[in-house]
């Protein structure tokens, strides 16, 4: 969809650019040619009150230009809701996007429209596949936007919206909530990972699995229970079924933390470089800084400062990173 939007933009842009050059050039010409000359202070130019032909002309010309732009615009509008006919035979996956203050839940749907598996903040999609999104919100209005794939569409509590996109090549696409939604609106980000069909199938198969029971024997799990994490988070395969915060079942396999506010690379590496190289931080420093004080990283965050000690943070961080 993004390509179609770019083409439409370029059409309107170039028309606007031509008009811009004409108007500004006229203005500059007038300023130079008709400036008052010395000794001419009292000169009264011819008092032309108007010219009907000119008025008709410069009304009709904009009308024609406007019609010229409106036609491709109208053609493009239906496409922003549903994929056009040329995609009728393309494979499709359906994902429900749920916006919440200030993160994104992704519920992948199976062929019957039931929930296949749930993840958060990082959406994987196969290339050359139509991804149909159903957009919902559990609190306020947000707006789901991954610019290089498609424009934006609001998620509105009380109604469902829809959009679609289709990645023609593999890559990592950054996104962000576009509708002001409160304190951490600026930090409500997301990543979409477009990969080959085989890699996607592998990823999805892994996402469907819950964690083995052995996880409940670990020290990390004990902390996860004691500190109340189970109240907000789900880890499938355990007794943690909280649904206020993101699903953490495969947190370890995700590339970012807290809806992409932090990445899992070295703290000194910036956002974009990390995503280009995807080298993990062995010391888990970014993850630890999140666990230490979430509201300090993400103002207004519903996850409180749990007052964890350094060793508790390390244990939890390792536990979470093991949830591959």
């Amino acid at each position, binding site marked *: 969809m993004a390509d*179609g*939007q*770019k083409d*439409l*933009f370029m059409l*309107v842009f170039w028309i*606007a650019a031509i*008009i*811009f050059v004409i*108007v500004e050039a006229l*203005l500059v010409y*007038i*300023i130079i040619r*008709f400036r*008052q000359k010395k000794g001419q202070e009292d*000169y*009264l*130019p011819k*008092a*032309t*009150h*108007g010219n009907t032909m000119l*008025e008709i002309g*410069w009304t009709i010309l*904009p*009308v024609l230009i*406007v019609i010229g*732009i*409106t036609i491709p615009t*109208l053609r*493009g*509008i239906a496409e*922003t809701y549903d994929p056009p006919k040329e995609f009728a035979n393309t494979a499709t996956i359906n994902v429900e996007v749920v916006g919440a*203050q200030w993160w994104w839940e992704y519920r992948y749907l199976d062929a019957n429209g039931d929930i296949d598996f749930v993840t958060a903040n990082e959406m994987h999609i196969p290339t050359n596949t139509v991804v149909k999104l159903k*957009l919902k*919100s559990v609190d*306020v*209005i947000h*707006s789901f*936007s991954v*610019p290089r794939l498609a*424009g*934006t*569409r609001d998620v*509105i*509590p*009380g109604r469902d*919206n829809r959009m679609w996109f289709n990645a023609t090549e593999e890559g990592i696409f950054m996104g*962000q909530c*576009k*509708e*002001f*939604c*409160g*304190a951490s609106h*600026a930090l409500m980000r997301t990543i979409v990972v477009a990969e080959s069909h085989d890699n996607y199938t592998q990823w999805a198969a892994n996402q469907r699995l819950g964690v083995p029971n052995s996880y409940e024997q670990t020290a990390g799990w004990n902390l996860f229970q004691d500190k109340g994490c189970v109240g907000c988070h789900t880890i499938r395969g355990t007794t943690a079924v909280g649904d206020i915060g993101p699903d953490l079942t495969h947190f370890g396999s995700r590339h970012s933390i807290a809806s992409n506010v932090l990445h899992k690379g070295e703290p000194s590496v*910036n*956002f*974009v470089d990390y995503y280009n190289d995807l080298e993990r931080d062995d010391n888990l420093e970014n993850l630890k800084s999140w666990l230490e004080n979430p509201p300090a990283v993400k*103002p207004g965050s519903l996850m409180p400062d749990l007052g964890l000690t350094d060793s508790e943070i390390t244990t939890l961080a390792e536990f979470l990173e093991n949830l591959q």
Partner: protein
Amino acid sequence: MASLSYILRRPEESDGIWGWLTTVDHKRIGTLYMTTSIFFFLVGGAEAIAMRAQLASPNSTMISADLFNQLFTMHALTMIFLAIMPMGVAFFNWLIPLQIGARDVAFPRLNALSYWVYLFGAITLNLGWLTANSPNAGWFAYANLTSIQFSPTVGLDFYVLGLLVLGTSSLLGAMNFVVTVINLRAPGMTLIRMPIFTWMAFITSILLVLAIPVITIGLIELGFDRFFGTLFFDSAAGDVLLWQHLFWVFGHPEVYILILPAMGMVSEIFPTFARKPLFGFPVVVFSGIAIAFMGWSVWAHHMFATGMGPVPDSVFAATTMAIAIPTGVKVFNWLATIWGGNIRFTTSMMFALGFIALFTIGGLSGMTHAAAPSDLQQTDTYYIVAHIHYVLFGGSIMAIFAGIYYWYPKMFGRLLNEKLGKWNFWLVFIGMNMTFGPMHYVGLMGMPRRNYMYPSDMGWDFWNQISSGGSLIMAVGILIFLHNFFRSRRKGEIAGNDPWDARTLEWSISSPPPHYNFAEIPEVTGGDAFWETKYPGGKKREAPVVDIETNDIHIEMPRPSFYPLITAVGMALLALTMVTHPIVGVLGLLTLLWGSYGWMLEPAE
């Protein structure tokens, strides 16, 4: 026992603070609006500089998320409601009676009330700063972020109450001006002979009368949701999107309310400084009417991302494209006005020419937004911020500067300094382009708006630095303006009644005008009424016509009154009840009753 007429006697005409508090003179009220709106322009500017300081570098921690969210909300509210709109009203107040050959507006006390209510509304809106709890959900305050559940602090209460009070001021003022234009024109001044600024002011006032009630409904419903637990904008029982429709049905005509007065001003300024009449006067008038009318049909172009469906999206895309036509027609008529002219580059003219240059850019970027599918990439990014500021700063503010340099001599009897004016112009022009130009680019590169910080190396860093630098240059230009404004009150060159050799009636009387404006109400026989008396048949008269100026004339003018101020205090207290205590409401009601009864019963002289 004192008689009622003694208790209610009207105050004497006086200078000093008492005179200003009780004035009903449109010229003084215009000056009150002007100085207050300049003050709030500076407040809004400070809010902007703070934001640009934060955004000068990525991942900045200078300003917290919450403070930044308050800043961008208050910046917009301040600039729109407390600076640009009241500045327009300042000019309406000063110029409408003078341009139509009247002695005052139709309802002088109502005029004063409008000003005081504006001042108190402005204060109400800013009360949040006292507790660091200003409105923080954007000037558009979308439901349901604004519900008590998601915005429990008092900031949004100030939003609801402040805007209700300000809306009242706008409505009262607008009704006053509509009646004035319809009823008080000098003999012979048919509507088509009325000056173009007064035309645009008239159209703007009609728009206000129709648009303010819509936002009032929205604000009352939001207020009821917040104070009384109703569910208008509840996501389950009500409709969250209803707020957006109500807001933008007001909000779009509102932007025409912001630009039409500016267009009226430059339409007066070009003919004067090109020494040629406005090209296509009736067409310019009718384009203004067309813009005002068509402006009602485009509101949901602010909602292209909300998923209304392909049919509404298409309709609003088409209507939005259409409104480019009358706007373009105006620009062509301005160009044709100065084409072939004898152009004097006074500061006022330079700002007016800058207006054409910059407003054109803003209008063209607006055309790109109208392409709905492409708008889904542009919306809520800095590309939109660029558009808004090119039309509002490059448009309205530039025209307001042009208007101030043009009419200040009439208002205060002295010219503003031209040298300072040129510095003012160039710094503001260059600074403005440096600040908002790059925003087109970073917006298209995906930088979202209303973000208190942005990550590094998205490609946005450099241009944000440039923007922030530009804002400082603009600030210096504005400081120079301030210096010019205050210095020229005392040291400016004496203006005389017609320093620019202009065309309309306000220039036929002294600067500043006498209290009664016109010793004799003029007889009007055509458009550009004053010009005809100076240059009958196109040739200059031997001696310029000067209005009889003497203090011996006693012309009965409306007497000053306390009651507009008292009534305004009552209205403000009533509004504040919801965030204070019922006793405030009782006090407010009593004050309002006192103001109203005094108003009704005070003697005419």
